[in-house]
């Protein structure tokens, strides 16, 4: 890939590509509502390297939809029309509580160093109470076999040392604290993808570790825009840039209208 093409890769495309590489073939997963990035990642992964993934497109009820572009909402009717099957909301919740879902892609208005998430309520540094939209499916972070966290806001407000309210259980206070309260089969967050970087949550501490920094960003920039210092093991590499195939499939098949390249 040329430097020009590389510079042309939007953060949303980069995030979709990182997620697409992370998914394990044959697994069964779910995404939330306004989820263009994981939606694109799942389409990219199933088309290129993991054809046996099955995934649920949020409120539409559609499994494995094949819409010819990237809908603004995973509830878009075209997801239902092009799906293999329609599930009910009871199906989703059963699959969630029973840990049948191998993974989910989730975010939050706060995400902390142990991967706990908050979508419900917080208090700003100046003491103002802020209402979030609500916990919705984050409660099932307790039961999904694993969770890919992502956020489009790599900021000190979003990436915090400790969430004000645990909507979704990450590794709680780290170490084995999660497994003292929840079932072992649900292993918690495995990855956090932001517009600048990738983190994981390795044992024994299960605290966010900076795995790589996306092309065009620096470790200093990553650290300056978050409210905790992640673990770093030696030199932090650059996130491998998109391959030609990844970018071509993403742009020609998954997102031909370039939704992920628009200002967001």
């Amino acid at each position, binding site marked *: 890939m040329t430097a020009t093409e590389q510079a042309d890769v939007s953060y949303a495309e980069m995030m979709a590509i990182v997620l697409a590489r992370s998914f394990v073939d044959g697994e069964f997963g779910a995404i939330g509502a306004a989820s263009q990035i994981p939606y694109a990642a799942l389409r990219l992964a199933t088309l290129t390297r993991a054809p046996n993934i099955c995934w649920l497109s949020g409120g539409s009820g559609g499994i494995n939809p094949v819409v010819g572009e990237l809908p603004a909402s995973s*509830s878009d009717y075209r997801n239902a029309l092009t799906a293999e099957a329609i599930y009910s909301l009871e199906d989703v*919740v059963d699959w*969630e509580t029973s840990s049948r879902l191998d993974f989910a892609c989730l975010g939050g208005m706060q995400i902390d160093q142990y991967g706990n998430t908050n979508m*419900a309520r917080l208090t700003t540094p100046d003491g103002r109470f802020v209402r979030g*939209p*609500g916990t919705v*499916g984050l409660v099932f972070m*307790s039961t999904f076999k694993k969770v890919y966290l992502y956020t489009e806001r790599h900021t000190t407000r979003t990436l915090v040392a400790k969430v004000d309210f645990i909507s979704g*259980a990450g590794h709680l206070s780290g170490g084995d604290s999660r497994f003292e309260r*929840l079932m072992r089969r649900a292993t918690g967050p495995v990855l956090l993808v932001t517009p600048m970087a990738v983190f994981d949550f390795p044992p024994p501490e299960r605290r966010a570790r900076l795995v790589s920094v996306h092309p065009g960003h620096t470790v200093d920039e990553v650290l300056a825009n978050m409210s905790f210092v992640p673990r770093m093991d030696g030199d932090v590499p650059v996130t491998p840039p998109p391959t030609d195939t990844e970018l071509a499939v993403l742009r020609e098949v998954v997102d031909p209208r370039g939704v992920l390249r628009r200002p967001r």
Partner: protein
Amino acid sequence: MALLVDAPKRKSKVIPLEQLREWVPSGSTVGIGGVHSQNAPMAAVREVIRAGTTGLTIIPTPSAGIAVDMLVGAGAVSTLHVSYVGLEFLGMAPNFKRAAEEGTIDIIEGDEAWIVYGMRAGAGDLPFMPMPPMYEGTDLPSVNPLLKRTLDPHTGREVYTIPPLKPDVCLIHAQVCDIYGNTVIRGLRRFEHVMAKASATVVVTAERVVDGPLGEDPRVVNIASPQVDAVIEVPYGAHPTASPGDYLLDEDHLRLYAERSRAGDFDGYRAEFIDKPQDHIAYLEAIGLRRLLELRHR
């Protein structure tokens, strides 16, 4: 058949939209269907607001949006079960956010399991629904005292439970139903049938109400007639949300709603789009035929 000419005929459940107020008195507990900006029963919501209804407890689907936000903005809501209330890719629900932050409504801090298993318990009138380890990892029990614990009689372990949710009335928007209430909802994962079972009464608003066979495979009828108490025909009744297969969501109008609400002018929006148009047709005229036709699926 000559034999049956004098036999009594089955009754229609069709009512005019204006009668909805009798089904949703102030102080009642109301279930609301729809997912995000799809299939919200907006004509019904506007009618409830027009009637000056107050003191409602609202239990929406887990992914609620403008229907709930508008009721909150209009002061119709005293208590709200929150799983998610927002405008999805258009941001926070402004009236809900303000009311919650100012403390003018009571929030029952829930989540997807709260609504779905709560309605599931309501559907069978089960005393409660016990959960696998889940809430133990969250802060929800600290703010929701209705998440009570009991003993698993098989293991002796304490488990969290969700109480049954049982709306007095459930408002559901559908694409088509017959005059007896057999209802087809397109474009969503099925949940409205569970809400209907959990609710004492169910009112369906539909794009089309047919007096005769639905012409649909009976397997895709989401809600069967014995579950439905009243039926209201309201073309474009989900506007500005989408009615899958009929019209898309009206993104411009949703933005207009959000911006005016955020700017503190919900009352202006309400005057223009709810109170001034005295009925549903007048509302549609305020939106404009040109715009309505633009929203049809292409």
